[in-house]
């Protein structure tokens, strides 16, 4: 189940675990990333908590936790090479995996069509 937030995060939910990243649109707005700060594995975050930080040459931006849950894995590859987020934001450039506290809440988020209409 692929879902989107109006903060330009995507999440792919499989068996209650959401893989979370930022959208193509977000990456276009940010430009070339030079640094990514990821959350600690094991951290419990509420929806809309700042979960990660991305830095482009010109500015820092927060990446928010889309739903309440526990961080179970982070993508160390983008820490070492933030440009992966630019080249493949909705694939290899994922940020973290979140074990959702209430998986059903994901159904309330936007689907791809609604998101594309929002940023259109």
């Amino acid at each position, binding site marked *: 189940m692929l879902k989107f937030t109006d903060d330009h995060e995507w999440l792919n939910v499989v068996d209650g675990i959401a893989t979370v990243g930022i959208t193509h649109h977000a990456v276009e707005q940010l430009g*070339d990333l*030079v640094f990514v*700060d990821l959350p600690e594995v094991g951290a419990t975050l509420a929806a809309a908590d700042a979960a990660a930080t991305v*830095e482009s*040459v*010109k500015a820092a931006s927060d990446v928010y936790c889309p739903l309440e849950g526990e961080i179970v894995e982070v993508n160390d590859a983008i820490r070492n090479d933030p440009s992966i987020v630019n080249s493949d934001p909705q694939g290899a450039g994922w940020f973290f995996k979140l074990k959702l506290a209430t998986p059903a809440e994901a159904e309330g988020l936007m689907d791809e069509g609604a998101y594309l209409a929002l940023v259109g």
Partner: protein
Amino acid sequence: MRDETATLKQTPLTALNIELGGKMVGFAGYEMPVQFPLGVMKEHLHTREKAGLFDVSHMGQVILRARSGRVEDAALALERLVPVDILGLKPGRQRYALFTDPQGGILDDLMVANRGDHLFVVVNAACKAQDVAHMTAHLSDLCEVTELTDRALIALQGPAAEAALARFAPEVAGMAFMDVRDVTILSADCIVSRSGYSGEDGFEISVPARAAVAVTRALLSDPAVEPVGLGARDSLRLEAGLCLYGNDIDTTTTPVAAALEWAVQKVRRSGGARAGGFPGADVILPEFEQGAARRRVGIAPEGRAPIRAGSALYLSETATEAVGQITSGGFGPTVEAPVAMGYVPRSLSEIGTRLFADLRGKRLPVTVADLPFITPRYKR
């Protein structure tokens, strides 16, 4: 998006900037491109490798003409507002200057050129109205102060800048760093200086507004030249250790605290033939002997994380009282590392001093570093 920029002023190049895919933002009251489709990182690197073209028409261009007709009188008049040797500036030469205030602070930084029979001054966009009022209030007894509102200003920066401009004006190849000349480009009467704000060789070209698009398109027709936005302009100047007014210098920083002693020539310092005579001289001149309490320094963060303006500096990971502050910071695409500038107490300003910067509640190690972060390639 357009609504946000509806009340902003445009430059003679705004429409072309939009046509070139510029991402437009409000800056100092103008609708300006922060980046083009190449993006900040590649625009920065392209400028250092080949040449970048910047619309800096938002900056103020001002003529000071002495009522006597003698440029020396305009120079002496302007010296009442800047701690800089203007009288000694030869025709066809340009120099960096600072407007100071009675407390010794800096009201703006500017470039001053001796154009033979008058002075030509370029000031920051955000300070333009205030600077023109300041000069009018203090210099009108001796000078006419005229803002040139019908000209664009284009910066062409980078190692390929000379060849790109020489296609249209071969004589620019003979100019040295800080030379200023009248140059005809595509039949337009331009004022060209060999200077800039990137740490690279290059030119700033004052063009009549009606010719600005044609000159810009002609320069961009060279495959070595790419349009560059304000984002890369900022990262280029930061790597070059150049101050941004409002960040690194302002009314709370004196020229000595800002490490701009080089901008105050000996003739204006204590013991010089025209010592003092500018606002704040009683504060500024003693600092040349005693030093200022704090000093602007380069700051090299040790990790990969950029540390930005406003971040506080501490003596240790646990110290509760800040000892300094970052005033400009970001990622340096050429040095491939974060770079910053800031103010620290004089006792901590030695290169190699280790400090800690606050980044989102974490303390990250940083080192006081030599400026600039890159080796400038001015054509001396």
